[in-house]
């Protein structure tokens, strides 16, 4: 019973993913799947960031940096020098993810010792450095980015590719990843690690006094969230067949923070819902010339009126939300 309750968001997500696909295909609106697939990969980033911000209470204004490291690594490996990994193209994504994790580990150790403004600024600086290195290095295509990134053949005939004919299977690949990500996130939150994280979020000194190895847990979540971001980046690079420096920009990092805040800071399923929807609309150009303004307004409005996220506004939902499962028992 409690197990069902715990994984209800995962089951619901899987159900919604299937229903949406069937509905869209039945109504001949299946071109929506393209943007839904892209938005899934961005949702992975926000899901990871949600763990970091909502549970460990650490802000990161540099997550676009991790996304970009993932995307650019796999892009370079599969294009430069006629594809360094052309004998085993599927290896390029794992390599990208491992590299990102290493970078996050090295960056995280000193950065996570900082708090408040200093942490925000240090992560912002990290993201800025990544974007400047990309813009300054010809290997990364500088301002033009990298194009003609090949499709990647997975197992069982699955291919990550933006081809129109492969639209449905790519939709499922992307959303399966998000579902797995949500499953892992909920597991993490419910575990011993999750309890320790909440203790850190509540009061770091007290947590440390209780014997929680604060810095190790913070680092673990930081690296986990970077891995989420890099998986999203690496898959999207192959799906889009191209990647540009805008993916590493400060504005992107800020946007991820906005999505997590709107999703309710500590609510994985809320983050998935808000992020999927808003990113989908943004990728369809629904906000026109006001795309950035919408996200800026969202940040301000959420923080002023609904610090618990959009869903926090709905009466009744709050009590039943997974946040409760997240409270110390």
């Amino acid at each position, binding site marked *: 019973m409690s197990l069902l309750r715990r994984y209800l968001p995962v089951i619901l997500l899987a159900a919604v993913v299937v229903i949406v696909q069937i509905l869209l295909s039945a109504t001949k609106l299946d071109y929506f799947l393209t943007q839904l697939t892209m938005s899934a990969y961005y949702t992975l980033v926000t899901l990871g960031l949600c763990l970091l*911000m909502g549970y460990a*209470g650490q*802000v990161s*204004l540099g997550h676009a940096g991790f996304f970009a490291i993932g995307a650019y690594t796999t892009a370079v490996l599969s294009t430069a020098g006629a594809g360094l990994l052309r004998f085993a193209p599927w290896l390029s994504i794992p390599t990208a993810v491992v590299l990102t994790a290493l970078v996050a580990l090295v960056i995280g150790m*000193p*950065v996570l*010792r*900082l*708090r*408040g*403004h*200093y*942490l*925000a*600024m*240090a992560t*912002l*600086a*990290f993201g*800025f*450095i990544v974007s*400047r*290195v990309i*813009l*300054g290095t010809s290997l990364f295509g500088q301002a033009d980015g990298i194009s003609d990134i090949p499709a990647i053949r997975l197992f069982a005939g699955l291919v990550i590719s933006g081809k129109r004919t492969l639209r449905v299977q790519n939709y499922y690949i992307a959303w399966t990843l998000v579902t797995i990500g949500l499953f892992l996130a909920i597991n993490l939150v419910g575990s011993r690690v999750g309890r320790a994280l909440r203790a850190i979020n509540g009061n*770091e*000194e007290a947590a440390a006094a209780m014997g929680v190895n604060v810095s190790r847990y913070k680092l673990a979540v930081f690296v986990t969230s970077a891995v989420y971001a890099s998986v999203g980046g690496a898959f999207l690079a192959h799906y889009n067949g191209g990647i540009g420096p805008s993916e590493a920009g*400060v*504005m992107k990092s*800020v946007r991820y*923070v*906005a999505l997590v*805040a709107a999703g309710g800071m500590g609510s994985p399923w809320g983050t998935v819902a808000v992020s999927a929807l808003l990113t989908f609309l943004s990728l369809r150009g629904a906000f026109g010339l*006001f795309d*950035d*303004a919408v*996200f*800026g*307004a*969202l*940040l*301000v409005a959420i*923080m*002023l009126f609904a*610090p618990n996220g959009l869903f926090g506004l709905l009466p009744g939902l709050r009590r039943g939300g997974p946040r409760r499962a997240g409270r110390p028992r």
Partner: protein
Amino acid sequence: MGAQLLQYLFSGVTTGSIYAIVGIGFTIIYNSTGIINFAQGEFLMLGGMISVSLAHVLPLAAAVAAAVVITGLIGVLLQLVFISWLRSPSVLRMIIITIGLSILIREAALHVWNEKVRALPFWTGDETSSLAVLGARISPQVLWVLGVCGLMVAALSLFFRSTLTGRAMRACASNANAARLCGIRTSLLVTLSFFIAAAMGALAGCVISPLTQTQYDMGTSLAIKGFTCAVLGGLGNVTAAVAAGLLIGVLESASISILPLAYKDVVSLAIMLAILFFRPEGLFGGRPASLLGTRRA
């Protein structure tokens, strides 16, 4: 060779004076509220934009003065509308709100003005004039920037140290509740600090406009540099922020002499990260950075 070294130094001072004058604005709001205003760069942009627009109908000095006052009032408005009624917001919440505001101001500026670049005329001489010192050259506008910087530092030091209002502001920052118990009207002081910070930001935006030019999206990158100065100076110390700004400028200039220009920002940000990691109290002493996060304002 000597002349060339001096020229690098002058270039560093030019860049550094721009960073320093941006950095000052951060320290003002920090000193009275303990928050970092991520929208500070937008105040510079607004100052520049408004003064350029007014310079068509007013004399330069009047246009600058008007821009300073108007931007100061915009700062007050932002504080009253978005920040004043929040009860003890967390640092994270304040960071996110000010970032959101910076985006909104920028987008509003894009639609009020447009994407085009603008510049105030040089305050002395014109685009081509420069002063020669021992074979190296420097634009007279840099002297204006340094002069305004110096005036700001002097005025602010005097204000925070010697006036009752200034000292009350510092009291607010270190412990708002205690300050309130002592009969200090904290909310008014916070509003005042937003006025000063926005006005100083606008003045900075005006004085650098002939050099850097003014565009709607200039705020973010300037803010990052200004924040770097404020951090290196140990947050809250105006004089140290200016010194740090000049130092970063000179270091960047030195890095350009050996490295490609493309990595200039990487160098200065890497220095900032190193300082944060190894000397969190800033280059010139002060409170350690890691203590600040635990303060729940």
